[in-house]
């Protein structure tokens, strides 16, 4: 279970100390998918980064518990070993590093930290190829340097592939639908939905209701002005689609 308790955070080297997250409270039980929706600048991506442990952000108060354990003091790789995965809104390109090489380095690294045995080369190739086929990731893409020259849709599929390979227990999807056409959204969200499991919690961050037609959430939270303004079922997303965020952006000022 993910528990976020009164979380306050700001940009680490911001002299003015302007808070972006102003006391977030949120619980995502294992086995559930929750969506976070909100307007631009509401703190959605900041929340995703803070969960993953990016050091550009400073947590000024509050706590994040994953399965009862605070992860605030952990480095990003330690969190990854604990099962935290962030699908990036803008995945990075890593020139010269073949996708397969990257996947293997990452998988072996987390397996080692999780006390699991490293996979042998044939095991690993079989494992990745099977997952890749499900997501329509070609062998050619696996040979190319990670994300270099990939289209927007390919990059997002690659994020989901990494998620499938690393087998995290807490998945955070940061605007995975941004910049994708309808077909790409379908492929990516089908991939993500396959990972729905009683052992896994997912937090899906998005602007639009559209994505939630494919990844059906158990709960929807509205994040605006750095706090959760409203929580509801999947019908809340439909309401927002009609009424917009105006109600919330005026409110907490």
């Amino acid at each position: 279970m993910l528990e976020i308790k009164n979380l306050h955070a700001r940009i680490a080297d911001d002299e003015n100390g302007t808070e972006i997250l102003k006391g977030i409270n949120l619980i995502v039980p294992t086995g559930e998918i929750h969506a976070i929706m909100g307007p631009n600048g509401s703190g959605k991506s900041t929340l995703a980064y803070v969960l993953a442990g990016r050091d550009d952000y400073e947590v000024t108060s509050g706590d994040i518990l994953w399965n009862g354990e605070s992860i605030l003091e952990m480095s990003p790789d330690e969190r990854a070993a604990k099962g935290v995965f962030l699908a990036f809104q803008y995945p990075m390109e890593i020139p010269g590093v073949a996708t397969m090489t990257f996947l293997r380095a990452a998988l072996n690294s987390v397996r080692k930290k999780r006390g699991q045995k490293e996979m042998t080369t044939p095991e690993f190739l079989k494992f990745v190829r099977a997952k890749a086929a499900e997501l329509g990731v070609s062998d050619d893409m696996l040979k190319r340097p990670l994300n270099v020259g990939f289209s927007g849709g390919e990059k997002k599929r690659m994020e989901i592939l990494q998620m499938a390979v690393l087998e995290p227990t807490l998945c955070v999807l940061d605007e995975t639908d941004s910049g994708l056409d309808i077909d790409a959204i379908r492929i990516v969200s089908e991939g993500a939905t396959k990972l729905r499991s009683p052992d896994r919690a997912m937090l899906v961050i998005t602007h639009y209701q559209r994505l939630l037609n494919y990844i059906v959430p158990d709960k929807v939270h509205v994040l605006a002005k750095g706090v959760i303004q409203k929580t509801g079922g999947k019908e809340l997303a439909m309401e927002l689609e009609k009424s917009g965020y105006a109600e919330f952006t005026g409110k907490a000022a």
Partner: protein
Amino acid sequence: MAAVKETIEQVKAIDVDKYKYGFETDIESEKAPRGLNEDTVRFISDKKGEPAWMLEWRLDAYRRWRALKEPTWAKLHYPKIDFENLYYYSAPKGTSGPKSLDEVDPEILKTYAKLGIPLKEQEILAGVRKTGEPSPSDDSPLADGYASMAGRVAVDAVFDSVSVVTTFKKELAKAGVIFCSISEALREHPELVKKYLGSVVPQSDNYYAALNSAVFSDGSFVYIPPGVRCPMELSTYFRINEKDTGQFERTLIIADKGSYVSYLEGCTAPMRDENQLHAAVVELVALEDAEIKYSTVQNWYPGDKDGKGGIYNFVTKRGDCRGDNSKISWTQVETGSAITWKYPSCILRGDNSRGEFYSIAISNGYQQVDSGTKMIHLGRNTTSRIISKGIAAGKSQNTYRGLVSAHRKATGARNFTNCDSLLIGDKCGAHTVPYLEARNSSAQFEHEATTSKISDNMLFYCTQRGLSQEEAIALVVNGFVRDVLQHLPMEFMAETQKLIGISLEGSVG
């Protein structure tokens, strides 16, 4: 990816700022008196039992050196070297030249074993993959083809000023290949040495080359007869051990018509607070249709984390594509030395000859690197290719300096240059100084250059996927240098990937 894993394990196995090759061997040595004058030159020549013409050649070089001035154009800053306070010759006592393995001082054999260079003919170099082992990176297009070739490497071991042993000589002799120390070559094959020594790098070429010509003590000599493809990799392993001693090695490689040779040199030195001088000259001659592939993994002691100590590496390396259709390819991995001043070059004299320069230069701590190449196009339809990858970390300065020139008769000359610099942290510097001179309107030169930084975004992305900071840097840097790594002999790729990780440890605070 096995290589990254190995890199990480290697990094973990040693403390930050610990140079793994920094030990010293306690061995009695015989030295020339401190300082440099004509008597020093005579002493060295006499020690080696050289013919009279060689002594004259050295003395001529010495007199020219006295008339030359130390070059100051490189972007390097260091206190003036006191040439009168150095030893110019130091040999382990009792060695008068290379012997068979069972005669070599066991202390020296132990030293090389410790360095991962077992001087036994039935063994292969440490770190070399045996046939059938998985390749270091599964995606390498070279991996499969090389596995069967990996196996034996002939080694010439140079300890301070002398060559202590050369392996596989008999077997090479069967193919007609001469591989021995240059001292031995002067005794056994004086006509070849006389014909080619100084023919690529003349005595007065530059300050350090003149110094080397006067006092060079040992180095390797290779001759590949016409039409012969050298049956194994040749390599020389240089070790500086003595205190206050300069190492002046001289290497001469001749590939006769239609022959091929691949040669690799490696170097290490003990950790000392004083700076030590290394001024080598390497000359390559490729005759018609011949090809020489020369690779260097330079890992001299780089100094400590405060910039104290380390080797001053002033090296002149030049290849002469003397015959038509000849090819010379330099690949260098420069990770060591406090100061590196080195420009492996190609003179493209023969028509259709080809020169290549692939370089990875890594600087960390207070290291200073000023390195690059010269491609001199003289013949018709000559081509050259330069791929340089500079990586600067810590408080280091890393300069690429290169010259591409086409003589007015060099019609159809072509060059492609790509210089990429990668910065890690914000206290280091990367500089690119390319010179292009085309005296022929048909010459086509292309130059590409990029400078980038390992961004926090990239590191965060990698660490989010479970890689530690060090693993992430090693992975990104190995990706950055990939184009060049592929040109190293397969046997040394995995070793080099490890070395890259080690060189960059502690580069991000």
